[in-house]
């Protein structure tokens, strides 16, 4: 796969279709991969990498990159294409400056998951059937691939590329995922249990803004939390209120726009399951206003901008037992 991508990138640079390629470059370890803009075939050949650790969603970088001169090629995994469409819907990309290449994805792994599973001193990681084989300073360690996968990939919603200029590999299919299971589990709890669950999670937030800055839906020129005039400005949470406030507002601001790409949870240094907040909104929207997948097609109207006169649920539905 990686070789195919490198070849395609070099060809596109060579035939002048694009003058830059947005992809991933290898780091010091097997897993510390950095999104990178390559400007030459030499650079691509030397540093380009595509493996199980290339989880980063590159679509957000296109906001800035597509503003620049010339065309840029970008490799998009299926879930990244949803973000791409959503950004197009919101007029954030200069489409003419982008050459989008859809690439296959079998689920991505984070080194964090390996570390959390007690695998340290990692020198190399190889896939062996359904397992990952990690060569470590402390010997060979094996872990089932689906255990090592990011949560978002275990519950992958779609392997379908919804937008591309060119496809390497199959177009893919929308999957029947279990992504709402965790939300349902929380819904089944008592409010007290839910409160203490979220308090435990959110109180760990250090307000590093990684979730926000990585989020392809968070593209404000000036975030309300960075704006002293907004009334919710705060740099660090002093207490539980501010912890919750930040995440409620953020989830609300991306409600109807979040494609559930899962980057927020991937990057959270405190491992807060932030995607659950977004998924709750997605689930509620699906339940109340019909299935809606942000980014499925360009130009969709967000369910929060739309309404029906007769059939919309009243807010009292929440008091009457909630939305399930």
């Amino acid at each position, binding site marked *: 796969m990686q070789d195919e991508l490198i070849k395609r990138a070099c060809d596109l640079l060579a035939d002048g279709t694009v003058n830059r390629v947005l992809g991933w470059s290898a780091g010091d370890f097997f897993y510390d991969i950095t999104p990178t803009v390559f400007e030459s075939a030499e650079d691509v050949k030397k540093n380009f990498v595509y493996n199980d650790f290339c989880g980063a969603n590159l679509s957000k970088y296109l906001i800035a990159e597509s503003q620049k001169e010339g065309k840029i090629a970008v490799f998009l995994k299926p879930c990244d294409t949803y973000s791409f469409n959503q950004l197009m819907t919101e007029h954030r990309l200069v489409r003419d400056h982008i050459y989008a290449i859809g690439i296959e994805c079998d689920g991505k792994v984070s080194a964090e998951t390996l570390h959390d599973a007690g695998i340290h001193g990692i020198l190399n990681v190889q896939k062996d059937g359904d397992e990952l084989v990690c060569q470590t300073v402390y010997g060979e360690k094996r872990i089932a691939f689906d255990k090592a996968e990011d949560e978002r990939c275990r519950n992958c919603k779609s392997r379908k590329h919804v937008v591309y200029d060119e496809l390497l590999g199959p177009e893919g299919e929308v999957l029947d995922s279990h992504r709402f299971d965790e939300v349902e589990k929380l819904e089944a709890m008592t409010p007290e249990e839910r409160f203490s669950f979220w308090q435990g999670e959110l109180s760990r937030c250090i307000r590093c803004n990684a979730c926000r800055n990585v989020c392809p839906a968070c*593209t*404000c*020129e000036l*975030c*309300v939390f960075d704006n002293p005039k907004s*009334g919710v400005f705060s740099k660090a949470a002093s207490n539980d209120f501010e912890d919750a406030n930040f995440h409620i507002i953020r989830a609300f601001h991306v409600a109807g726009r979040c494609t559930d790409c899962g980057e927020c949870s991937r990057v959270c240094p405190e491992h807060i399951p932030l995607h659950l907040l977004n998924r709750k909104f997605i689930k509620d929207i699906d339940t109340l206003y019909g299935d809606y997948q942000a980014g499925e097609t360009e130009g969709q109207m967000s369910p929060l901008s*739309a309404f029906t006169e007769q059939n919309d649920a009243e807010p009292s539905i929440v008091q009457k037992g909630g939305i399930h």
Partner: protein
Amino acid sequence: MQKIGVFVCHCGTNIAATVDVEAVAEAARHVPGVVYATDYTYMCSQSGQDLIKDAVKKYGLTGVVVCSCSPRMHEKTFRKAVNSIGMNPYMLEIANIREQCSWVHKDKEVGTEKAISLMKAAVAKVELDAPLTAGETPVVKRALVIGGGIAGMQTALDIADAGYDVDIVEKNPTIGGKMAQLDKTFPTLDCSSCIVTPKMVDVGQNDKIHIYSYSEVTDVKGFVGNFKVTIKRKARYVDETKCTGCGLCTEKCPMKKAPNEFNLGLNNRTAIYIPFAQAVPKVATIDPNYCLMLNKGVCGLCSKVCDAHAINYKDTDKEIEVEYGAIVAATGYEIMDVSKYDEYAYAQSPDVVTSLEYERLMNAAGPTGGELLRPSDHKRPKTIVFVQCVGSRECDSTRGGKPYCSKICCMYTAKHAMLTKDHYPDTDIYVFYIDVRTPGKNFDEFYRRAVEQYGVHYIKGAVGKVTPENGKLIVQASDLLMNEQLTINADMVVLAAAIEPSHSARHLATLLTASMDTNDWFTEAHPKLRPVESPTAGVFLSGVCQGPKDIPETVAQAGAAASKVIGLLSKDKLAGNPCVAHSDEMMCTGCSQCADVCPYGAITYVDKEFRMPDRTTKVRRVAEVNPAVCQGCGACTVTCPSGAMDLNGFSNSEIMAEVDALCR
């Protein structure tokens, strides 16, 4: 930091009885930013206003809080007062300590505490208030009247009299409306056509009035003073400019089975037709549902006989866009469909008719040439039963019943009874009623004549069932006063069916953004003080579209609406509402969510060049609000995640300051 003055009104004892107004003023003196506070018996009085104005001058106030009645009552008054001495009116806020405090709370301590809290919230808001100036927009000096009945005609004539151009859009081929279908009018029993047809002619001949007959309004854009209205001119297949109204085509037309709307389907007309002799414009129209040429491609007789070459089978619907400064809704009413009222057998027997049908049966220009003959066998009815309140004053809406009184039925039934008796004195007439309502000039006298002079049988009671049997209508009813059951063998039954708003009115209201009540009557801006204006600026109400009325009331309201229109059109420019949304282009990402929720289409996007901190430039798409179109609802402000979109006068920070103050 503002210098704020707080003025606490006693409102006589209305406030002072439950709120310690002096304590409120004293508390205000301790609020940061407040430099002056006082109380007074009647702030809204001239001397109260002077007190405010003097204090503004004396203490150099930059903001004012008046603690008084609801802002819906006197906000304008006070804002005008401070504006008269040069303060921006939007630097004044009202703390509603009457309707929402002194009048709803009994305990003085509690009331005072709440009043102080409300005062503090208002101060917090003023602290963040910024002077707002309204933009000005020019006024298009042309009015649109939708509906060409007596209401629309009268409004149009009055506007035209004042020298302004006015267009009438009428969905039917002719103007005239319901009044043209009436025989006589109550309580004077003068001939309806004799009054209305000259009006129609006046309208048709007036240089200032243009009639778009057989047309509908399909879209309304813009705002007061600057509406852009799309009018659909339905295909008439006859060139209006060429047709002389000679009527030859209607004589020759072989297709004679089209129901005649003018006679409510009681007889038929030809496929090409002129609704009635006095129609304005007197132009033929081809009914595409019945025309053989249009449907089967054979015939073409009308075209052959038309010397004016006015027939055009290839005619299509056309849309035109016209600009108006004001719009008047005069869409009138319909007779409710009573076929669901099985007990009256309306659907079963042709001899059960509605009052309007009865009106046509009595009319000299009607299907029977003015001779009262019952539809089934064209025999003269000897016994007629009138049933009042069919569908009116009914709480159960499952059969389409209306909760309101249709207002005109009592009087026209008395009229029908008398007219019938006049022509055919031997007729037995029974009127079943719940109440007889006659509040109008000469109304009760009129009713009493029917009873006393004409011997009409008025029976308080309800008709339980009408059964057609052997050419008769067996009417079973109860007489509530005598407490007995009656059975009447009637020849005809006339139902005083409820009137309801024109079926197109709901759609029109949506286009006009005018509000309606649950019965689909247009809502007035204020039921007492602004009865002919809709809440949407620049949209006025004329006639029955606002609620049931008789003719003189309709004409009076039509004139009133016209005078409001004239008042508006006489202005060269209109000051807008400055409390509109605005977008901070430095923060806007151009995501378009705000435009998605804007009900007025007030938001557009432009690509703008911005200088970045590193001195490069970047082109960004940003939102722009048209302040003349924006009505200030604020939907966009919530949809904007960055808060780039904010609302003047109700800004995010102002509302949050109020929240803070009230939670303190």
